[in-house]
């Protein structure tokens, strides 16, 4: 009988685990990308499913939107891997232009390889790569059939939940660099950062909860069977023999339940008490211990049947709650530091000018390094040669690139935009300005919120109440019938064990967290829902948070140009990588490129060139008009043959729905803006934010942190929303820090929650739903108290029999979980959030 239960248990637990973990990874974004409706499929790219436009590329009677997609298809079909397209429609991701050539050259360096590889022996190597692009069953198939693409691959296994693939390969046939380039060529780009080289620091899977859950479930099932005879009140010799032996077996099964599965709660209660803190674990631990010892005493002394069945149920249900609560988004990281932002290797130049590649940790002051277009400056350095145009938007919040001349100092973390530059390293990576910001003391300490959770508050009063109640009734019974005292006091502790209460919190907030997850808003732990609900002040960062990260917007209203002139402008600006040029070019798409002669880009001034025999100048007022008036930032002047056509206004683009979001939020919350950028957009922002006093510009990361601290000191509960490294301190200091990101799997600073930028408009809905979730918590707490009152009335009157306890405990837990899950689901349905994606 009991083995049947064990089988069923094993069979049931795994599908549940499957079910629950499902939504962890598949983000809504992925879904949208791949949910191509059949109607559009006539013109949809065979590879990625995007619209192919008017001139699709055709191959084998299939349409492709770009050469990137066609190439991936060719590689796959040439290697017998075109089954890839059978599992999902349009499984690919649109290829981003990736100049591969030299990008991965550093993987030829033995030292770097050694650090990246899991092991390498006798020509066989094994590596674990994090590939954010993994999103569907086709991905799994392809990545596990890499040997079809290259015979050097021996074996590969995908971990879908973590978006990781473990590849074993023969390094004599296939070098690490070739392997990575192979993955890049089929658009599965592995993320290689300094963090992936930290051995031992890799996240460990915590499987303890499964073991504890398994043990508790196994013992619970068996105890229930062995307790069954005691529920029937037949009294003959045989039955009594069975009861005795079964009782002993129950003690045997009770030991692992109480002291292995239940140890978490006992240890947590002990730790809390040592810090003079009464958590919900205290009455639970008391309940577990009293249940076990009283039952053991009853069974051994033959005075009763004991409550082992209740003990098994209690610990089993509590473990389920723990498991549900501890669910985390494994592919996301909420604890990133600078190591996951920095690259693995850096190109250094010898005195003779010969390039070589070294691991970044070997970088020493005094070395000369080469930083190419779009590469990161890894350490504080002096500019030796080249024109620096450094994009600090992620580090300091400044929106436009800073131009640097030879001899200027460049801080680590900036990204070079434009031609390669040579730098002289001044400080080691770990001591640079940026990393020191991370290493400040407050970064290391575990974040403490300024308030206790609702559960802490309630359990404090609850525990006190139980203590008083058991003392009073203990004294009462001592006076009336001393033999009953022990029984009544233990019965109170047993029945008051707040199992149902302990289940409300993980299940309601865990449910809310999953609703958020389906809407691409990922919380670090369930407790963050409560923090969100209590917030009364919201502080926004500007660059990248309320403005968009994907380039500037261009306004052509001040420009009077003919179509032909626009055509020429378009042809010229496409040669420049300056953000303003990119913004102008984006608005002028659809023109075919005309040949440009004499193109020149003068950093911090503008670009010029000859198109169709006309001389074009595009850039600052000084550059284009020759006047030396005060430069107005955000204006790009254009002249053709020295005739001024006007200017294009270039500015940050705000996120979609920002006005609605801010006006909705301002009704309930106090809004602040905290920007590292200048106040060029003050006028615009004044119309969004209610008060000028709350708009702060030119704030350093440290000042941001101080600002949050002073808000908290004045009693406000602060939600900080930011995106960059410069917000890291403020995110940490705030009561709840949300980091906003275009791609949640890429770098974002340490925070409590990660919001996908497309979902910014749902921010008010998220906050509202967090308050709904808390209301559900309150309701279910009231419900569980009702159960406790019923149970206590049995206990105080001395009528608590094992059967009553065995029925009451699971009944209360199951109804509470049912109530909570159902109400979270229903209220999510009535909110503006997606219940299912």
């Amino acid at each position, binding site marked *: 009988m009991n*083995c049947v239960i064990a089988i069923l248990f094993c069979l049931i637990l795994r599908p549940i685990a499957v079910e629950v973990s499902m939504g962890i990874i598949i983000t809504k974004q992925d879904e949208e990308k791949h949910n191509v409706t059949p109607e559009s499929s006539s013109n949809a790219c065979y590879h990625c499913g995007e619209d192919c436009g008017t001139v699709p590329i055709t191959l084998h009677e299939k349409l492709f939107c770009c050469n990137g997609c066609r190439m991936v298809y060719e590689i796959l079909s040439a290697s*017998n891997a075109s089954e890839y397209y059978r599992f999902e429609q349009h499984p690919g991701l649109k290829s981003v232009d990736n100049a591969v050539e030299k990008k991965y050259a550093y993987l030829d360096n033995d030292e770097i390889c050694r650090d990246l590889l899991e092991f390498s022996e006798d020509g066989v190597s094994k590596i674990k790569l994090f590939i954010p692009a993994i999103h569907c069953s086709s991905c799994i198939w392809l990545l596990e059939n890499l040997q079809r693409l290259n015979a050097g691959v021996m074996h590969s296994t995908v971990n879908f939940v973590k978006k990781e693939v473990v590849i074993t390969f023969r390094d004599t046939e296939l070098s690490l660099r070739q392997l990575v380039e192979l993955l890049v060529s089929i658009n599965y780009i592995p993320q290689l950062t300094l963090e992936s080289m930290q051995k031992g620091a890799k996240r460990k899977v915590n499987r303890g909860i499964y073991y504890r859950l398994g043990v508790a479930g196994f013992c619970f099932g068996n105890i229930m069977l062995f307790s069954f005879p005691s529920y029937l009140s037949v009294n003959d010799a045989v039955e009594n023999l069975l009861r005795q032996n079964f009782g002993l077996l129950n003690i045997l099964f009770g030991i692992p339940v109480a002291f292995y599965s239940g140890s978490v709660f006992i240890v947590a209660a002990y730790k809390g008490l040592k810090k003079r803190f009464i958590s919900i674990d205290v009455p639970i631990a008391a309940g577990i211990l009293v249940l076990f010892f009283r039952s053991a005493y009853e069974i051994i002394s033959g005075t009763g049947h004991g409550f082992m069945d209740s003990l098994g149920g209690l610990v089993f249900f509590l473990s389920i709650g723990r498991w549900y609560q501890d669910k985390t988004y494994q592919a996301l990281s909420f604890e990133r530091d600078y190591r996951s932002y920095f690259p693995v290797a850096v190109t250094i130049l010898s005195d003779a000018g010969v390039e070589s590649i070294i691991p970044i940790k070997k970088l020493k002051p005094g070395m000369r390094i080469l930083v190419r277009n779009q590469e990161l400056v890894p350490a504080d350095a002096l500019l030796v040669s080249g024109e620096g145009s450094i994009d600090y938007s992620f580090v300091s919040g400044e929106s436009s690139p800073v131009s640097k001349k030879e001899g200027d100092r460049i801080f680590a973390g900036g990204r070079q935009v434009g031609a390669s530059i040579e730098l002289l390293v001044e400080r080691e990576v770990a001591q640079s300005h940026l990393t020191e910001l991370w290493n400040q003391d407050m970064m290391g300490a575990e974040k403490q919120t300024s308030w206790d959770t609702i559960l802490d508050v309630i359990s404090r009063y609850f525990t006190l109440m139980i203590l008083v109640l058991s003392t009073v009734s203990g004294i009462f019974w001592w006076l009336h019938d001393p033999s009953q005292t022990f029984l009544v006091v233990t019965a109170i502790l047993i029945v008051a064990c707040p199992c149902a209460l302990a289940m409300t919190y993980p299940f309601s907030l865990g449910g809310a967290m999953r609703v958020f997850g389906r809407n691409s808003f990922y919380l670090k732990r369930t407790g963050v829902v409560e923090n969100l609900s209590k917030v009364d002040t919201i502080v926004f960062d500007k660059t990248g948070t309320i403005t968009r990260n994907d380039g500037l917007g261009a306004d052509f209203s001040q420009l009077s140009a003919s179509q032909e002139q626009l055509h020429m402008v378009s042809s010229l600006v496409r040669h420049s990588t300056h953000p303003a040029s990119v913004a102008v070019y984006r608005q002028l798409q659809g023109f075919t490129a005309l040949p440009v002669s004499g193109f020149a880009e003068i950093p911090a001034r503008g670009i010029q060139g000859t198109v169709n025999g006309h001389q074009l100048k595009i850039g600052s007022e000084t550059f284009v008009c020759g006047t030396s008036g005060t430069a107005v930032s955000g204006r790009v002047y254009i002249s053709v043959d020295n005739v001024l056509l006007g200017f294009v206004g270039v500015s940050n683009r705000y996120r979609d729905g920002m006005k609605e979001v801010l006006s909705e939020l301002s009704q309930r919350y106090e809004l602040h803006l905290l920007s590292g950028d200048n106040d060029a957009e003050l006028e615009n922002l004044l119309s969004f934010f209610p008060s000028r006093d709350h708009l702060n510009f030119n704030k350093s990361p440290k000042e941001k942190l101080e600002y949050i601290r002073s808000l908290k000191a004045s009693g406000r509960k602060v939600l900080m929303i930011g995106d960059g490294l410069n917000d890291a301190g403020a995110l940490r200091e705030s009561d709840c820090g949300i980091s906003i990101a275009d791609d949640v799997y890429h770098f974002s600073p340490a925070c409590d929650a990660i919001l996908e930028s497309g979902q910014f408009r749902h921010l008010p809905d998220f906050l509202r739903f967090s308050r709904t979730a808390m209301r559900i918590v309150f309701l279910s707490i009231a419900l569980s108290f009702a159960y406790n009152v019923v149970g206590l009335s049995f206990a105080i009157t001395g009528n608590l029999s094992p059967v009553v306890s065995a029925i009451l405990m699971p009944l209360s837990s199951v109804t509470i979980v049912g109530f909570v899950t159902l109400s979270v689901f229903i209220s999510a349905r009535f909110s503006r959030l997606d219940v299912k994606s």
Partner: protein
Amino acid sequence: MSVILVLVAFSVLLAGGFLAAFFWSVRNGQYDDTYSSSVRILFDDDKPKDPAPPVATPASPMTEHTPNQ
């Protein structure tokens, strides 16, 4: 009646075996990634016979979308 006790002992032993199997599966990492294996089992082991580009066959068991929580 002691036969029942013998049977109970055996059944506990057997159930313990299943518990051990459960432990093994956890240790083996089967609970780390509960999605891939559900898909992996549907892949064909054999190499495709026809190297030519395949006809897009929608009638695959996996055209359904990856379930989402």
